[in-house]
């Protein structure tokens, strides 16, 4: 299988705090990978290192075999290949829903207005927000904002979608609508890398689950293996604690 993203010996320190320690990790084309783990285990940092919102302290990141930390590499072109969905939505507050999905296409991908609008409308209807195209972000609920954020990322037609705890900032009753949209996306065969605390969702959609603990990948495997027969005690302990809460 073709590796689309490969991370080798990745490390990240904030001051003296070592957040990621020698991470080796890869994502195959078409694969849905969920990263689970307790807060502070480095899940989000790993995701943010992959699209270089955080600069790795050491190691290498390969995208389709190309080292993107190489100085010659076009960072911005690489980022357009990755769609990022944030915990706090981060919709552009000065743009309406449609324009949020168009501005990147027009300014970065240099698409025409008409084309950008068609693409944006297509993905807005995928997430069920096509009726709200002229709404400003502050007029929307959290769940609606996150669906627009997903449409914005999809409008760039990326190769990989990165989700950084997309439901953690939502009210419980809005989690469902966002997960539903994400579940639909997995059916399109999109490559997805999801940091999440939604264990049932992770078990259901992922091809592979990665459990992170204290800055390292402690265990990875199929959802059946991780959730039913975890090898490590700390994985078992984490799952017991999280599943108890629900």
């Amino acid at each position, binding site marked *: 299988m073709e590796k689309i993203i490969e991370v080798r010996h990745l490390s990240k320190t904030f001051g003296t705090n070592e957040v990621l320690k020698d991470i080796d990790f890869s994502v195959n084309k078409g694969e849905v990978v969920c990263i689970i783990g307790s807060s502070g285990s480095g899940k989000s940092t790993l995701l943010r290192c992959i699209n270089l919102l955080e600069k790795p302290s050491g190691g290498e990141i390969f995208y389709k075999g190309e080292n993107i930390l190489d100085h010659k590499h076009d960072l911005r072109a690489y980022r357009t290949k990755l769609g990022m969905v944030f915990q706090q939505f981060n*919709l552009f507050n000065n743009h309406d829903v449609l324009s949020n999905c168009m501005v990147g296409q027009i300014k*970065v991908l240099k698409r025409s207005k008409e084309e950008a609008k068609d693409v944006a409308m297509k993905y807005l209807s995928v997430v*069920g927000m096509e009726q709200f195209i002229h709404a400003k972000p502050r007029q929307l609920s959290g769940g609606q904002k996150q669906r627009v954020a997903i449409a914005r990322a999809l409008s760039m037609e990326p190769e990989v979608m990165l989700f950084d705890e997309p439901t953690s900032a939502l009210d419980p009753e809005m989690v469902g609508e966002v997960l539903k949209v994400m579940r639909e996306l997995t059916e399109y065969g999109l490559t997805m890398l999801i940091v999440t605390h939604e264990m049932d969702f992770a078990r259901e959609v992922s091809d592979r689950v990665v459990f992170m603990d204290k800055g390292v990948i402690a265990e990875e495997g199929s959802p059946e293996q991780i959730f039913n027969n975890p090898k490590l005690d700390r994985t078992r302990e984490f799952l017991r604690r999280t599943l108890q809460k629900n």
Partner: protein
Amino acid sequence: MELNVIIKTISKYWPMFLRGAGVTLLISTIGTIIGFIIGLLIGIIRTVPLPEKGIKKSILKIINSILSVYVEVFRGTPMIVQAMVIYYGSKQAFDIDMSPLFAGIFIVSINTGAYMAEIVRGGIVSIDKGQFEAAYAIGMSHSQTMINVVLPQAIRNILPATGNEFVINIKDTSVLNVIAVTELFFQTKSVSGINYKYFETFFIASVIYFVMTYTVTRILRYIERKIDGPENYILYANQMQVQTPEDALRRQQEMN
């Protein structure tokens, strides 16, 4: 205070008041606009992220220190002194002869620029980091991010402070009378020098100043509200269309 004195003063000297108010508005409007542009440019330059190394970093550092000297000097000295130094100083020391009106606009502009630079910087810094990250994540450069995402929000946020500067400028152009700019205060002084009715004449001037500042404040408020748009989003959908769950919920809420 005698009402008939006021009426007499107005009917006799209204062209002088009018011209004075006109010059005051002209200087403060142009000064605020140019000052805003100066402040915007400086604010943008001062928030450019420092490159990690190389010649670009040193150049940016030098520019930044020059800009902070400008900001500190013009914020730290009174405008009336700046006016004397620039207008008379340039004439005596460098033999540059400028008209009082030009000098007035120049002084108000660079003064406002120094204040606006800090206001703009504050406006940019106050924009949520997530806005930058989201823009970078879809592949935008720093300048694209600034132009398309950050500045429109920052400018909206600093509108009230800009309005404040405008109002201050309308009032503070009165100090330009020391370099013989024929603004409202200068004209009022001339009128009172003719009729010796100081109280009534300056009372008229204060009313004119107040009307100008109040009008400006109201206009800016109106612009702010225009930019913000309505609080709620109304779906203009045909009722015969199949309704989405959001629609149903909204309608239900409206009924209650």
